């Protein structure tokens, strides 16, 4: 039998290093559309500016973010996107899906989004990646996706490291925040 009077009851010992440890965010990037990687890049650059540690696990189509053969030509598909904004600013009419399926419409949608981003002074994909790397954001290329999609190690940007789910979960287990995008 233990006496509660001898020692104050605490759930855990205070961590002497707690004050110095930066917050950590673990992101899973599973999509590779230009419109789909922007939320990841915005969250990552912001977290880096808040002086957090950030690691992004690029898996399935998200691998395109770190694949040098594809990362500079990410696209937006207008097809089947009920939320696609009208092509002309201030006009209310959308584009019917049957037009979106015509050849070249993905290029049109991509150029349109790039134009909107530029008009709003939002950095392009390459500039956002640069900001991520400057901020110390770590990119992890999913090894399984590389195997499935036949992506070679030399196709992955040199700043990214190749690892599997176990290694990423090991990093994510100590994260204060984890998001799957």
């Amino acid at each position, binding site marked *: 039998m233990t006496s509660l009077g001898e020692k104050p009851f605490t759930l855990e010992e205070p961590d002497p290093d707690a004050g110095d440890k930066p*917050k950590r965010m673990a992101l899973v990037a599973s999509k590779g559309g230009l419109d789909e990687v922007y939320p990841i890049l*915005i969250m990552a*650059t*912001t977290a*880096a*500016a*808040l*002086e*957090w540690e950030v690691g992004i696990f690029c898996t399935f189509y998200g691998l395109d973010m770190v694949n040098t053969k594809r990362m500079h030509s990410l696209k937006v598909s207008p097809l089947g996107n009920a939320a696609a904004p009208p092509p002309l600013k201030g006009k209310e009419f959308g584009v019917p899906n049957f037009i979106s399926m015509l050849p070249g419409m993905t290029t049109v949608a991509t150029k349109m989004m790039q134009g909107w981003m530029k008009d*709003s*002074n*939002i*950095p392009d994909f390459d500039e956002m990646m640069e*900001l991520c790397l400057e*901020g110390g954001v770590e990119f992890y290329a999913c090894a399984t996706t590389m195997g499935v999609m036949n992506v070679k190690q030399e196709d992955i940007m040199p700043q990214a490291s190749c690892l599997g789910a176990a290694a990423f979960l090991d990093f994510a287990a100590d994260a204060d925040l984890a998001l799957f995008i």
Partner: protein
Amino acid sequence: MTIASDELLDCTGLLCPIPVVKTSKAIKTIDIGQVLEMVATDPGAPPDMEAWARQTGHELIEQTAGDGEYRFWFRRTK
């Protein structure tokens, strides 16, 4: 409102995340104890910059809003 600042950062016309990213870079260029003044037009800037100061520990000394302009003064603390 005038507060003496050592550096002025113009983020007018810029949207999230750029004002936060630029402020984060700019604060590293001044000495500890010096003051960075930042001006933005993004309506998301006030809550964002308050959060940035809370998370990084740099001091938000003062902020003003008017005529679609948001002004912040940060003291570098570390």
